[in-house]
């Protein structure tokens, strides 16, 4: 690996990284006071929801308040973006949060204000967060309509709190406020996943999500400690100037004089990012998080929260660049996660879980984007992915809402041809095209930027990683259209889900176990009431078994089409996903920045290094000078080549899906893919992939059970050993007393004899001594 680092350094040097104008780049203007409103409005909203809950409001009022407030903060975000161009960076402080100082030296004061750091990266993130939040709130107003009253208020309170935390995370001007947002979103995902608290699986999934996030947060916390210990401050405006000398050292290519501690910081921060964005080691919580209502999955587990990890790395990009090992690790973890998640998604039957795994996979792409030094690609993919993944989730939500909780793709077919479901079908198609990377869709452009970089950025095994990503892109295309062809097109057929009679209350006590893919196995903490991880056969079981179980009479059930709110949101989101592609062409301040997203990134800390990526050829020219053979892909400009390659792969994926799942499929149950299963290796591969490569069981076996046994042992040690010793000390005097008691026999002679004997002994001793 050693060989590559000089190249890495030289590349950074070549890219003209490092802000030449060190001084000017970092002076920070004081931000507008109203910028603070963006996070404060949702907080106010959460408070209002609390009041509604106390007052027992049973109307849809909470939803309208939330939509209103979030809409207003979206407008403010836009205003902030508009206000931004002329002065780059600004900080507006709400109030002084933590301030501990033990001296006046630079490193002797830890100051963390409730301050908001406004630069282009913040605007980029806040725009799509607030926009999506408003739309999904509107969607949720109808989706959650069947449990108005306390549940409704609780949902929207958590929803508002989530947006507040996300705003703090993104806009925080110091790592501590980021950490507050970080754990805040963790809390809200806990509350929202556990929304249907009557269901054991929901409660269990919520706990699992919170604890796995907490493990990630521990890594982040240690990163924060190390940052303060080394740099003496946590605030961005002081932190980044202090990183510059290390970037200079990196440019000179002398890695050795960057202290090991500094190189360790990004590794720790990365652990936090992986925990929050469900990357390989800590991804087990995201699929189970689908227990929560669909708007939650759409907003939190598809669009906003999971991108927090990407945001962290983008924000702390200077640190990541100075560390020799940080970016390669991110690349490889991202790449492997993408592959693993894609393979699992292929074998799932529950459409929401497929979408969840696809999110994990796409996040892998984003991390690779950042790792391949194209933070522009990563960021742009975040934006496009947010929109089309939200569309896909909301379509699935609409289907689930309409078909009484039915999510199994074998139970549904030809939905878009049913009356009233046209819009959902079209929105789904647009989403799938984007996800699959169909040429000229937004997803296509953003994924290309990442894939192209894979082949030209020098780094340990990046080329091989590029190939993996290409393969994953193909698999993504396949499973996306597998869902589309199985559910939305083909012969019309449907079966009601198990929430049929659920309409009178979203879940009632005797809600029989859904038995879907929630294997109950989990990475760290199996639920105590015994979800044995043995349940491997594909979910849902055969039709007869399903029929018997669902009490309602299937004949006269008729799905109810989504209302105006859901359709409206789906239409807007579909349009936005399409428009997102335009952003790639929308000319930013100057052509060099590769579209709008590039412009936004270049102005922020994330770009401080990537700047100077002016136009493609000059960069290439710089390369040509350095290492001609490694810089190009098949001799041409990598991006141009990637357009064709990824387009072809997209087509291949869609074609396979079409062949297997649409051509000649008579009913929803079987498809030509099933006869593929007869082939032994494919069947076992399918079984393993369906069971999530047994990662949950692995964690359960290696972490949870030994920890549980250790705790039992500790409990025993505490009860017997330590407590035992204390009781022993209590028992000793009594035992001693019992021993001595018989000597007091009460008989006179006894005492006399004792005295005489004593006297005799004494005299003898004196006698012996005196001889």
């Amino acid at each position: 690996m050693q060989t590559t680092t000089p190249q890495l350094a030289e590349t950074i040097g070549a890219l003209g990284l490092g802000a030449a104008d060190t001084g000017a780049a970092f002076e920070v203007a004081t931000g507008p006071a109203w910028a603070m409103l963006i996070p404060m409005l949702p907080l106010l909203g959460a408070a209002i929801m609390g009041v509604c809950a106390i007052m027992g409001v049973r109307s849809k009022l909470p939803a309208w308040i939330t939509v209103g407030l979030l809409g207003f903060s979206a407008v403010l975000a836009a205003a902030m973006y508009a206000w931004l161009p002329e002065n780059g960076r600004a900080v507006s402080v709400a109030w002084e949060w933590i301030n501990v100082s033990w001296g006046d030296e630079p490193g002797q004061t830890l100051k963390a204000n409730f301050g908001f750091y406004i630069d282009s990266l913040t605007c980029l993130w806040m725009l799509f967060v607030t926009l999506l939040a408003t739309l999904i709130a509107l969607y949720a107003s109808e989706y959650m309509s069947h449990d108005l009253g306390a549940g409704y208020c609780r949902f929207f309170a958590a929803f508002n709190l989530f947006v507040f935390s996300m705003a703090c995370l993104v806009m925080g001007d110091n790592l501590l406020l980021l950490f507050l947002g970080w754990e805040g979103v963790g809390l809200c995902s806990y509350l929202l996943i556990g929304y249907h608290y009557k269901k054991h699986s929901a409660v269990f999934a919520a706990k699992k999500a919170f604890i796995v996030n907490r493990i990630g947060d521990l890594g982040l916390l240690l990163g924060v400690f190390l940052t303060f210990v080394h740099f003496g401050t946590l605030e961005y405006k002081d932190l980044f100037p202090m990183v510059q000398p290390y970037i200079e050292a990196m440019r000179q290519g002398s890695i050795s004089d960057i202290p090991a501690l500094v190189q360790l910081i990004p590794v720790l921060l990365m652990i936090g990012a992986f925990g929050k964005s469900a990357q390989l080691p800590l991804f087990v919580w995201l699929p189970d998080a689908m227990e929560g209502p669909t708007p939650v999955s759409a907003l939190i587990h598809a669009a906003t929260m999971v991108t927090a990890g990407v945001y962290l790395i983008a924000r702390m990009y200077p640190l990541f660049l100075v560390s020799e090992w940080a970016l390669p690790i991110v690349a490889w973890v991202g790449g492997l996660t993408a592959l693993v998640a894609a393979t699992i998604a292929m074998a799932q039957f529950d459409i929401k879980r497929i979408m969840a795994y696809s999110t994990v996979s796409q996040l892998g792409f984003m991390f690779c984007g950042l790792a391949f030094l194209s933070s522009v690609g990563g960021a742009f993919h975040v934006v496009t992915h947010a929109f089309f993944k939200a569309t896909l989730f909301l379509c699935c939500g609409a289907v689930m809402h309409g078909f009484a909780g039915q999510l199994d793709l074998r139970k549904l077919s030809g939905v878009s041809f049913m009356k009233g479901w046209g819009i959902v079908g079209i929105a789904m198609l647009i989403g799938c095209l984007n996800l699959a990377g169909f040429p000229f869709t937004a997803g296509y452009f953003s994924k290309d930027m990442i894939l192209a970089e894979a082949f030209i950025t020098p780094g340990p095994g990046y080329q091989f990683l590029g190939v993996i990503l290409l393969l994953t892109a193909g698999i993504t295309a396949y499973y996306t259209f597998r869902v589309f062809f199985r559910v939305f097109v083909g012969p019309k057929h449907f079966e009601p889900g198990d929430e049929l009679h659920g309409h009178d209350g979203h879940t009632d006590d005797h809600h029989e176990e859904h038995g879907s893919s929630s294997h109950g196995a989990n990475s760290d903490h199996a639920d105590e009431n015994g979800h044995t991880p043995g349940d491997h056969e594909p979910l849902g079981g055969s039709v007869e078994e399903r029929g018997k179980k669902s009490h309602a009479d299937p004949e006269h059930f008729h799905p109810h089409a989504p209302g105006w709110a859901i359709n409206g949101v789906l239409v807007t989101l579909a349009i936005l996903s399409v428009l997102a592609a335009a952003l790639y062409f929308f000319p930013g301040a100057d052509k060099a920045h590769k579209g709008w997203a590039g412009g936004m990134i270049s102005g922020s800390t994330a770009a401080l290094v990537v700047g100077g990526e002016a136009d493609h050829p000059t960069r290439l020219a710089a390369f040509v000078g350095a290492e001609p053979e490694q810089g190009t892909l098949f001799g041409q400009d990598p991006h141009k080549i990637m357009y064709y390659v990824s387009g072809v792969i997209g087509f291949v994926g869609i074609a396979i899906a079409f062949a297997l799942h649409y051509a000649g499929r008579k009913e929803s149950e079987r498809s030509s893919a099933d006869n593929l299963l007869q082939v032994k290796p494919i069947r076992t591969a399918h079984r393993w992939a369906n069971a999530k490569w047994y990662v949950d069981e692995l964690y359960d076996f290696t972490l949870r059970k030994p920890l549980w046994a250790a705790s039992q042992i500790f409990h025993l040690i505490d009860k017997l050993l330590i407590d035992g010793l204390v009781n022993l000390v209590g028992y000793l005097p009594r035992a001693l007393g019992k021993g001595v008691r018989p000597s007091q026999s009460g008989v006179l002679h006894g005492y006399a004899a004792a005295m005489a004997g004593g006297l005799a002994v004494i005299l003898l001793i004196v006698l012996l001594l005196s001889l």
Partner: protein
Amino acid sequence: MVSTFASMADFLAPAQASFPEGMGSVTLAHYLFVSVAMFTLGLIGFLTRRNLIIMFLCTEMMFQAAGIALIAFSRFYLHHTGQSFVIFVLTVAAAEAALALALVVLLFRGRESLNADQWHSLKG
């Protein structure tokens, strides 16, 4: 009358005026031996006899043994404190006798028997 008394004393033992050369043969050790022997007999009596009164009698004997030793020392050291101390020994013996006998009467009235082994209610 006094002189006859004095002469009898002289008969029994030459007056103290002259140092006891005459009786040189009986040394202090003799008296001490007698005293120790009497003390031992008293002790054995106290240990072996069950009858309460005899036990107290034996204690009296031990007192008496002490008295002999004291007088012997007083005589051989020509110092009268020994003798005056015997008076105190007597007072203690008297006090002890009075109390012990009152106790014995009480105990006897309680149990109609003098056997020392019957009273062991002070068992621990």
